[in-house]
């Protein structure tokens, strides 16, 4: 190897001040990697692009020594959506920008670089409505497959879609690349169409069911994500049974956040969850699953995977803990972790998410630590303007669900 020709320096041999500059970057609340990059380029007399690679590698090594590997990547392929659902948690984020392919490539590279050889990786195609940017979906899928083959890591793909734009071609592509599509369906037609409307205000249930039918030809196991609004809580059990009859196999059910629930509706929701659990347990079927009900009660913990082992990349390459945190404040990227150019530079934010020290302290201060573990960061922000200040409505939901639903023991 040819030497770089960098003059030996006193002490550790590095130009003075660079180590301190790296530390300053790592300790900053709002890190400024371009400044460090320029300093390295100037002091070592190397091109800025090489200095950028050095910064990326330093940041990566710090993350490797401090935090778990990143194994899950969520991509906002587009901020666009073909629907106009009135409750959408992303409605303030939605726009028309799409992820350029160079950002998509860098995002995939970040996943593999930060995975530190972990055997099982996952990519979630998300949006907006991800099927509006199939160019990026295809690019990411095929580039990630190539990288996984090279590194001998396994890779799973998921997609969350409203199902309206599915076509024979896209469904075939998803099947060919083992992309599992999770559909957003809120119930049967009456409940679903209350909020899940197109931009002309028309309900979308019929079109989603057409998409479901199309999808099921190539993806026999159909999962749906149900968002329950207060006025739909009473029909939740009937909705689940009805959707099962229509071919749905797996349910993720959650109450809508960011709104104030009347106590009676919360009780109703919890009771309906109890009915669903009783039905699920009374008639075991090999074509039905509620992941939440199968989750063991013990072993739950503060926080979630966001920022710990999972990151979300925006259309312009910034890295957020998750899509919902990304969406709750359009003006400021809450809990920003970095970007695809320099990596996860925001060490303090990642530390807060991984350790949950602030969240634990806040829950303890409210005297609810025995029964609640802080909930969802984004929901906390919606309620209190602070990711780490627990949403007390979520706390009450968790208590009610466990009272009414034996299968909800892990809801903390």
């Amino acid at each position: 190897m040819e030497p770089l020709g960098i003059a030996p320096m006193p002490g550790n041999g590095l130009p003075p001040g660079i180590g301190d500059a790296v530390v300053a970057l790592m300790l900053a609340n709002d890190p400024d990697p371009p400044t460090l990059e320029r300093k390295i380029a100037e002091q070592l007399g190397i091109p800025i692009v090489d200095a950028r690679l050095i910064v990326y590698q330093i940041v990566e090594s710090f993350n490797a020594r401090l935090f778990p590997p990143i194994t899950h990547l969520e991509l906002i392929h587009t901020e666009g959506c073909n629907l106009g659902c009135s409750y959408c948690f992303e409605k303030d984020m939605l726009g028309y920008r799409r992820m350029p392919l160079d950002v998509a490539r860098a995002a995939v590279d970040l996943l593999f670089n930060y995975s530190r050889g972990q055997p099982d990786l996952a990519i979630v195609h998300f949006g907006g409505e991800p099927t509006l940017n199939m160019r990026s979906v295809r690019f990411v899928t095929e580039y990630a497959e190539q990288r996984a083959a090279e590194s001998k890591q396994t890779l799973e793909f998921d997609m969350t879609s409203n199902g309206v734009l599915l076509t024979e071609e896209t469904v075939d592509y998803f099947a060919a690349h083992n992309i599992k599509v999770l559909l957003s369906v809120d119930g049967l037609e009456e409940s679903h169409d209350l909020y899940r409307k197109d931009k002309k205000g028309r309900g979308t249930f019929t079109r989603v069911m057409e998409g479901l039918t199309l999808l099921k030809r190539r993806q026999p196991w159909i999962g749906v994500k149900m968002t329950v609004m207060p006025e739909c809580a009473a029909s939740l059990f009937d909705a689940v049974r009805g959707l099962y009859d229509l071919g749905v196999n797996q349910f993720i059910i959650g109450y809508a956040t960011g709104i104030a629930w009347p106590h009676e509706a919360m009780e109703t929701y919890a009771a309906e969850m109890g009915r669903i659990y009783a039905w699920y347990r009374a008639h075991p079927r090999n074509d039905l699953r509620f992941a939440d009900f199968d989750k063991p009660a013990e072993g739950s913990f503060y926080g979630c995977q966001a920022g710990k082992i999972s990151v979300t990349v925006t259309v312009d390459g910034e890295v957020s803990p998750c899509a919902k945190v990304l969406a709750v404040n359009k003006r400021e990227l809450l809990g920003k972790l970095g970007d695809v150019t320099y990596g996860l530079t925001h060490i303090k934010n990642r530390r807060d998410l991984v350790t949950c020290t602030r969240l634990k302290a806040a829950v303890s201060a409210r005297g609810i630590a025995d029964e609640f573990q802080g909930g969802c960061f984004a929901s906390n922000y919606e309620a209190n303007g602070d990711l780490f200040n627990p949403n007390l409505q979520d706390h009450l939901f968790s208590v009610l669900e466990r009272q009414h639903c034996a299968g909800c023991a892990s809801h903390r």
Partner: protein
Amino acid sequence: MKKDVRSEDLKRIADEIGADAFGRLTTAFEVSEPEMAAGLRRGGGPGWNCTGASFTCGTYECTGVVGCVGAFGCTVKFTGLTV
């Protein structure tokens, strides 16, 4: 004139700078954030978790939840299910 730097050289420089900075960061944390400093001295890894359980998020992995993506913080993991 700018020098062309090979990737091996970049890696070596990054390692040198990183090692130097890591020591400085640990020292800086000793007073202000002793928990962080302890983690640094351990080399990171399983010490960083929310409850004292493993950071591998085993609960999620074995119960079918993939990531924090939707309205409720999770989406389905299909692998391993009996279809």
